[in-house]
């Protein structure tokens, strides 16, 4: 995972820097940060929904719940994303 996230900004030690290459790496880093955020929040929400009194291990029903919860979280994410995007467009149209 190291090579993509290093400090090489697309220059070649004395040559011209390329905005395209810089942006490629910026986008990757943003995507990684977003994925980490998503997983952290998803874990939190699904733990709350699926694990009642914590036992000695995750039983079958808890594991199934977690799997479903992850899928529903992504579904909800998409719904919320669409709703927000629509609202932003509506607000811009009214300006």
């Amino acid at each position, binding site marked *: 995972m190291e090579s993509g996230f290093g400090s090489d900004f697309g220059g070649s030690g004395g040559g011209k820097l390329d905005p395209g290459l*810089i942006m490629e790496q910026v986008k990757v880093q943003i995507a990684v940060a977003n994925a980490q955020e998503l997983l952290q929040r998803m874990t939190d929400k699904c733990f709350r929904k699926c694990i009642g009194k914590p036992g000695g291990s995750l039983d079958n029903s808890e594991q199934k719940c977690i799997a479903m919860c992850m899928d529903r979280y992504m579904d909800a994410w998409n719904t919320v994303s669409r709703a927000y995007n629509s609202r932003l467009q509506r607000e811009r149209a009214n300006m």
Partner: protein
Amino acid sequence: RRKESKRACPGRKGAELGEADEAELQRLVAAEQQKAQFTAQVHHFMELCWDKCVAKPGNRLDSQTENCLSSCVDRFVDTALAITSRFAQVVQKGGQ
């Protein structure tokens, strides 16, 4: 003599951006920032709306849940707008 452009990365010897490239980079970065702001806001909505709208996760989101999530976003925005406008009034009246 061409004007020296700012270094993209202070301390990194040798590599520089031309002025046009730097302007282009600023544009691209601004676009990514806007996208990141959108994403951050969606995370925030999820924080609030998941608890309000989703009971126990099932095989799919039913239409009631979907509507709740959409409404949640809209009502939050309405709330933010209402607060902003009322706050402006309050401030205008001298904090009375």
